[in-house]
């Protein structure tokens, strides 16, 4: 049976679907198991536990766990108050009504003296209410579990734990629970809910023509996605080129810095190089200096009347200044320049990391290789490189992802320029993220921005998953000691 479950077809395509199928199977089994446990506890539990299924905390009161019972009761009371009375925050209800509002996103436009519905807050509060419902369900099942546990304690001749004992247990045996709970709540509130909110915006027409609170926006299904992929407008025209340049940038920015950093580390670690620490310090200085200062300084150095152009003029290479960045005549001039400038800020990180790795390669490996008659090239190729690649593969992937979502370098050096003929918002050096910034912050095109965010996430997540699973670091996780 076990063998059958572990069986995967040889075709990668089929494997993908088999895995998805298994995920849903496990999910269904989990839900079914939960339902069985729920019914079992209701049937098997004491009167207190049975009532707890309706009134949270009752089972704890039943077993004289007053404080615990009060906490659960307060949670249920608060939840019911929220869902029934739907108190208003900034003129918009949160709770039960927010669920209904999530469907319409508002119907009343208001007038010059009074506010109508605020679609943005309705969407936000709808998402928050769903978050509250899920957290309440967790508390609800915890209440039943707690009461049932007390039932079992009584049946086994034990005294149900007091609140003081529970707290003591939380600070000792279950300290991990005490520590992880705020973190999980934080992740839900600050990461999961905003992400869901952002994803939902992609399915609305929340843009410069539908700005709350004066205007309503509504659900538009996949219209924004269609506009990007098969539309005839500006977004559609620029998405492909921007995505293409983003991938080119990410590839070159990653690998030039990676290879450059390794070469620099190898050079500095060469036994013929003196003052190794001093060299390392010089390059680490670029990390110590805030990146935006370095970038602004480089921008000034390369400006049309800046020092670099002055040198070129003095040497007679050019008579007029050359625009290297945002005002460049040719887009590729600016693109190549940002990749080159990126070396300055990127190489020291790889150099530093590789230096650490090189210093930790077991000397015995080199000695054994020398005894076996390997030459320097063979040693480098068969020991040093695999060792570095093994350790740095995850860094390489995160660096690639980081470069896809890199903002500072492009924004500070070129601002996305040179402009593209036709006057699109996205310039020739704009990456998906800088374009996203312009669309949302400068032009309030939030729904289009949300679609681009989703696409960026899909790309980065896919690249991460596929590439990481193919690395030795993943496949031979336990090999490195």
């Amino acid at each position, binding site marked *: 049976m076990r063998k059958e479950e572990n069986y995967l077809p040889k075709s990668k395509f089929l494997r993908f679907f088999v895995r998805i199928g298994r995920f849903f199977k496990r999910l269904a089994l989990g839900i079914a198991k939960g339902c069985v446990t729920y019914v079992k506890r209701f049937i098997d539990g004491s009167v207190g536990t049975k009532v707890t299924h309706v009134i949270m905390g009752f089972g704890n009161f039943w077993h004289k766990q007053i404080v615990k019972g009060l906490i659960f009761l307060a949670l249920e009371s608060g939840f019911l108050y929220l869902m029934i009375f739907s108190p208003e925050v900034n003129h918009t209800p949160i709770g039960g009504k927010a669920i209904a509002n999530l469907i319409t996103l508002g119907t009343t436009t208001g007038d*010059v003296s009074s506010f109508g519905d605020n679609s943005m807050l309705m969407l936000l509060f709808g998402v928050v209410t769903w978050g509250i419902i899920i957290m309440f369900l967790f508390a609800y099942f915890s209440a039943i579990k707690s009461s049932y546990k007390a039932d079992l304690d009584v049946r086994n001749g034990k005294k149900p734990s007091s609140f003081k004992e529970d707290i003591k247990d939380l600070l000792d045996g279950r300290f991990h629970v005490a520590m992880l709970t705020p973190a999980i709540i934080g992740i839900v509130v600050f990461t999961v809910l905003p992400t869901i909110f952002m994803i939902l915006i992609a399915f609305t027409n929340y843009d410069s023509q539908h*700005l709350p609170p*004066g*205007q309503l926006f509504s659900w538009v299904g996949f219209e924004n996605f269609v506009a990007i992929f098969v539309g005839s407008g500006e977004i559609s025209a620029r998405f492909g080129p921007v995505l293409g340049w983003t991938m080119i940038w990410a590839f070159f920015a990653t690998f030039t810095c990676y290879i450059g950093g390794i070469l620099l580390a190898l050079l500095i670690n060469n036994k013929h190089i003196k003052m190794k620490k001093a060299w390392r310090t010089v390059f680490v200085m670029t990390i110590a200096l805030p990146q935006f200062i370095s970038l602004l300084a480089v921008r000034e150095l390369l400006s049309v009347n800046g020092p670099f152009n002055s040198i070129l003029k003095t040497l007679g290479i050019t008579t007029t200044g050359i*625009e290297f960045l945002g005002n460049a005549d040719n887009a590729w001039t600016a693109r190549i320049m940002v990749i080159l400038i990126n070396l300055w800020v990127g190489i020291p990180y790889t150099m530093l990391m590789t230096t650490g790795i090189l210093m930790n390669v077991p000397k015995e490996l080199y000695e054994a290789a020398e005894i076996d008659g390997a030459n320097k090239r063979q040693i480098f190729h068969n020991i040093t490189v695999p060792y570095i690649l093994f350790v740095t593969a995850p860094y390489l992937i995160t660096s690639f992802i980081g470069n896809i979502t890199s903002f500072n370098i492009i924004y500070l050096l070129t601002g996305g320029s040179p402009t593209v003929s036709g*006057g699109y918002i996205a310039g020739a050096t704009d990456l998906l993220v800088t374009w996203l910034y312009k669309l949302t912050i400068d032009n309030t095109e939030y729904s289009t921005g949300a679609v681009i965010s989703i696409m960026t996430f899909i790309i980065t997540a896919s690249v991460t998953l596929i590439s990481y699973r193919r690395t030795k670091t993943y496949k031979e996780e336990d090999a490195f000691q």
Partner: protein
Amino acid sequence: MKKVFLALLLCLFAIPILAGCSNNKALTIWVGSESVEFYTDKMDEYVETYNSTHEEAFPYEVEVKGVDTGTAASTYLDDVDAGADIFTVAHDNLGKLISGSSSIAPITDAELLAQIQNDNPDIFLDVITGTVDGVTYTFGVPYIAQSLVLYYNTKYISAEQAQTWEGIWQAAKDNNKQALSLAGTDGYNNSFLLLARNATTNATTLRLYVDGVQSDCYATGDDTISVLKWGQRFFTDANGAKSPSSSGWEVELKDEISISFIGGAWHLEAAKASLGDNLGVTVLPTFTITAADAYGTVEAGTVFQSGTFADTKMFVMKKGSDKAEYLQDILLFLSSKEVQEESFATCANLPAYKNALEEFTEFSADTVEAKLASAELAMFDYGIPQPFGYSSKYNTYYYSKGAPDLILEILENDGGNFSTDAEIVAQMQVVESLWKTGARPDA
């Protein structure tokens, strides 16, 4: 240790919760960062007067905060409830503030409405009103004016030469410099050409969302094409105008690469830093159409006056403010002629009231600030306010859909693509389409 760790974690979580629970009951006013101190003093004065003339003391603390006036409207719209009771915006932000059912409150106080009507030039009165549900309301109270002027290097350009672009151009040729630097290529900075008007008739055929009508845009008149042809000669000449570069106009002026610059009052400090005692300020110059520029009915020898967007900053009120009953009286005070004049003396904010050039004696002083103010107000005769307050999309169509780049392409004539009248007219037809619809004619 575990307990301490847990306590710290709980404290960390408590901070945002407590911050969120804080309830600020002060009456809040957002002004430009440079004016915070001035308006704080003025509000202290207001509260003092209020307390001495009323039986009950002014019921709120007043908090004056400095904001970036360019983004204040967006900040307000992001969270209206957290927005200020009174805040300052450029008039062309009105469109997005009143879109739909409006997010700001209209002015209703008769005394304040009368002051607005009596004190302000007509061009401002048109752009501080807006229509909601078919009814037109006054939403803004103008209190600062701004327009573009000419900053120039007196070492190379005489006051007389500065009156015409030909004079400046000649000075640049004589000294092997470039005549003009610009702060940007956007639709604001090219307005000196686009909005240029016949110096004799003070008229232009250019139409830009006239009376807020989206389709009422026109940029292919004979005068506009002639002006662009003149501009093309100016921008393509080695000693003519200089397209913005990566060095920035400040460096270009300081290094004497160029000898003049078109800017607003907000550029004054940088211009002073670049030119020091050689800084001259005057109205934007005129230029004369030559035979090479003449197009259609425009004859060679016709003189054009460079134009400008003549804008105002205005106070607006939060919709649904619980202090609404006090706000209009405060605005009556803050936008009074006296406070506007004091604001000029203290913060160099140019008064917006009409006839300020004649009535306000400070303008006759022999200071750069006074000259700048006089030049700015004089430019109001040759300018129009940015007509984008009628609708939030006009601003986007004018600035962000590529029209400024198309105009720059004509001026720079890269590759000789705009060497004929027909090519220029065709390009301007695309510009018209972008203004009207946000899209090219073939899109």
